[in-house]
């Protein structure tokens, strides 16, 4: 090649720029804007947005066979290492004592998973094949790493929209939930006071819990083992109190590095070809539906428990039985408190919220188990 042919070559970046690139860069800028100025899950959406930006600069080579984001994607997403590493850190940040002090609250963590399956049904009805429908449904786990883990196994081609939906809506919980709470509960129900008489929880209980839980869930739902075991490993590191070095590493360097690279790698899959289609729009709507359905199912189950116990349960805590910690718990407590300034159900709501974190992971594993067996994967 001589110098005359060089100039057009040098401008190939611009000449290869497509409208699709332009739209995706706009999407990237919106994600970065939401992350930075609206503070919507910035630790995830900022890297995802930036990764999307990079993937849509023509010929930059970041996503090419030997490009940086491809290397990171292969190392951490394909192997599913990143969501599991993040779970070690998350586990080390969870405190199960509010749940262990009121074990019956764990029931509320089951109802709040209905959004997963309801959304799966709707997605099937909209024509998505089963593997994709299940991956979309798992947005209803309202738990980033769980959604990413399941989607990577079942439908990696939908990873980016699913991750974006999962993390975006998580920040919208304070907007999504309160209207549904007021719609589905009566003023009288919201004013129900709950007694707080927690069992004292010993350090030994907190240490045994993650080990026993790993065993029980692992034996019954093997597909949930990677997720639940890493969550519990992190929790054991913290609860044991004897490996503070490892616990701190899990809560800091491991989770921070995995999060940054996970975001970049997921964002780098957001190419115009894969992202700019009607399915992405459907997924965003289905994700919103999943979040709302979780809340509705939780509230209805709360009302059922209230009825069964003869009015001793405030149904608002049903809405807290999802994974978004501690937002969902606080919203339930705040809504009750708004109705009656002397009504404090924070501790019950926190127990339900912790149950929702467990329920999400278990439900994700069950979904993965059922669907992968049906598909013969």
């Amino acid at each position, binding site marked *: 090649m001589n110098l005359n042919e060089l100039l057009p070559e040098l401008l190939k970046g611009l000449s290869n720029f497509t409208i699709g690139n332009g739209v995706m860069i706009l999407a990237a800028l919106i994600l970065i804007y939401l992350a930075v100025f609206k503070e919507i899950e910035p630790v995830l959406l900022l890297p995802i947005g930036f990764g999307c930006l990079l993937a849509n600069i023509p010929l930059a080579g970041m996503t090419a066979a030997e490009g940086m984001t491809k290397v990171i994607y292969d190392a951490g997403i394909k192997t599913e290492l990143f969501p599991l590493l993040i779970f070690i850190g998350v586990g080390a940040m969870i405190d199960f004592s*509010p749940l262990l002090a009121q074990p019956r609250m*764990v029931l509320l963590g089951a109802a709040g998973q209905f959004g997963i399956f309801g959304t799966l049904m709707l997605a099937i009805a909209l024509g998505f094949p*089963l593997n994709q429908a299940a991956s979309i449904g798992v947005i209803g786990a309202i738990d980033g790493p769980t959604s990413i883990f399941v989607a990577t196994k079942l439908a990696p081609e939908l990873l980016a929209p699913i991750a974006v939906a999962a993390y975006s809506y*998580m920040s919208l919980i304070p907007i999504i939930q309160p209207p549904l709470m007021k719609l589905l509960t009566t003023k009288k129900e919201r004013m129900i006071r709950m007694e707080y008489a927690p069992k004292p929880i010993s350090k030994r209980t907190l240490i045994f819990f993650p080990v026993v839980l790993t065993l*029980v869930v692992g034996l019954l*739902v093997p597909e949930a083992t990677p997720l639940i075991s890493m969550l519990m490993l992190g929790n054991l590191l913290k609860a044991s109190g004897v490996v503070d070095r490892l616990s701190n590493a899990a809560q800091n360097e491991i989770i921070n590095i995995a999060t940054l690279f996970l975001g970049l790698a997921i964002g780098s899959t957001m190419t115009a070809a894969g992202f700019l289609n009607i399915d992405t729009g459907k997924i965003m709507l289905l994700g919103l539906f999943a979040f709302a359905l979780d809340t509705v199912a939780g509230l209805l189950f709360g009302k059922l428990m209230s009825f069964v116990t003869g009015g001793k349960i405030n149904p608002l805590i049903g809405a807290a039985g999802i994974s978004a910690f501690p937002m969902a718990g606080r919203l339930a*407590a705040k809504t009750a408190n708004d109705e009656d300034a002397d009504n*404090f159900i924070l501790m019950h709501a926190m127990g339900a919220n912790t149950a929702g974190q467990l329920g999400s992971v278990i439900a994700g594993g069950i979904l993965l188990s059922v669907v992968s067996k049906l598909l013969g994967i």
Partner: protein
Amino acid sequence: MTPDLQLSLQITALGMGLVFGAILLLWLMMAVLTALTREKPPASDSPKAGTSTQADSNLLVALLAAGMALEDQEASSARPLEMPPTAIVSAWQLGLRTRQMAEKGNQARPPRY
């Protein structure tokens, strides 16, 4: 109803059934575990914690909730309260800790992963 929808209904029934089954088992497991590992509350094993008794807990819950309401509006500069060594404390301290971790003063939500 198409076969696909029928299948998805079945998956939902089976899935939610398994979720509730697993959660019920979890309840059982937690009950057994807490029963088996119960300890007599040690006299004063954690000298850092305050001396308030279990009886104070309702007051505390109220205080905590009030603090939470404040916190939702603006970052409070108040020092975390001294708490008794019960389950409440840990949940609350987690909240405080995550808030401190989010180093921007005006950010009410903790980081999510």
